[in-house]
């Protein structure tokens, strides 16, 4: 009787472990599908989250850098010059440092959190600030 039922099982699976193998197979299938969809949709999903198509991809990169170093002047150079200075040069250390961190053995970043489409808002706010500053100096 037992032999008969084992004959219906996949090769290599014994009756004792058949239930476990069945659930592992389901888990593996779910992992494969989700992993692929997730990897595939990450780039478009993140771009939409950040502000594309209102912002171009380069502008998204630009705004991310402005948030990272809390610096309105940070620019995403495309292409980045080969052997050029890294983007944080002068922004992390030194008299003109802009990056916001609580430094210590376990540092704590204090940059702004980026919620849905926030990069568009950050850009608009910055442009408004710059326009106001330009008006004030005239």
């Amino acid at each position, binding site marked *: 009787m037992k032999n008969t039922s084992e004959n219906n099982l996949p090769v290599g699976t014994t009756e004792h472990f058949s239930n476990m*193998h069945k659930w592992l*197979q389901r888990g593996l299938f779910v*992992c494969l599908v989700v992993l692929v*969809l997730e990897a595939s949709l990450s780039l478009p999903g993140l771009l939409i989250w950040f502000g594309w198509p209102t912002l171009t991809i380069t502008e*998204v990169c630009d705004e991310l850098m402005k948030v990272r170093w809390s610096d309105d002047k940070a620019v995403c150079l495309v292409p980045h010059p080969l052997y050029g200075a*890294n983007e944080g040069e002068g922004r992390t250390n030194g008299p003109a440092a802009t990056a916001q961190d609580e430094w210590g053995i376990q540092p704590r*970043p204090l940059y702004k959190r980026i919620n849905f489409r926030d990069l568009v808002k950050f850009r608009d706010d910055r442009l408004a600030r710059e326009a106001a500053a330009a008006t004030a100096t005239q």
Partner: protein
Amino acid sequence: MATTTNVFGAYNAHQDESKQAQWRADKWMIGGTLLMGTGVLGIFGLPLFFYGLWLQMQAAKAGLSVRPLIVTLIGYLVIIDSSLNSLGWAMDLFANHSLINRVLTSGWGAVFDGGYFWHYNELKMGPYTIGGAGAPGEKAWEISLILACFCPRLAAAIGLLQMKRWGQQWLIVTCWMGLIVWIGYNLNMTFYADVRYANITFPVWGWWIYDIFYITPFLALPYLHTVNREIFTD
């Protein structure tokens, strides 16, 4: 004598047919996996993979000797998992100033894991700029896991798909490495939790929801230890 020849002839024909059916299915699944391993093109690879999987299931139903479905799933999932990990980390290591990396990797960091956003591209080794993630310990994990875990695991998965004993054995070895990977990597993140999770969009729970599907080794190990290993050839 004639009967014996006929019996072996039928056996050989069955073996040949099985081999051809398996290869036909594998061609679709390999094509799909090549696309799925690129990440962004994965959505186009998935239907090809499913078609190959369906061909294999049809061959099994027709009585041909093809791989058990679970072995196929483990093998291809391990390849995809290893490829995606290696691709992301190779971009962070070698292509960290490309536009796509500065949007995808560091953007992902801003949303799920600050280790890939905080002071990104500032890491140095002596006078040399290394760039990429600068979170404490992260670069060491990237290099060691690509070299010592994901590449051997990928090779083992190919051996497993060929139903080789070494494939099964090496997949067991490299999947057990997964235990060290998950415990070590997560503890490193925990000790530097502020760097990783302060002021990012979806801290901690977001990372877990995104990354839990890389749990492959823990789904493969119980099978690899309980399958009748005689089905794998020396």
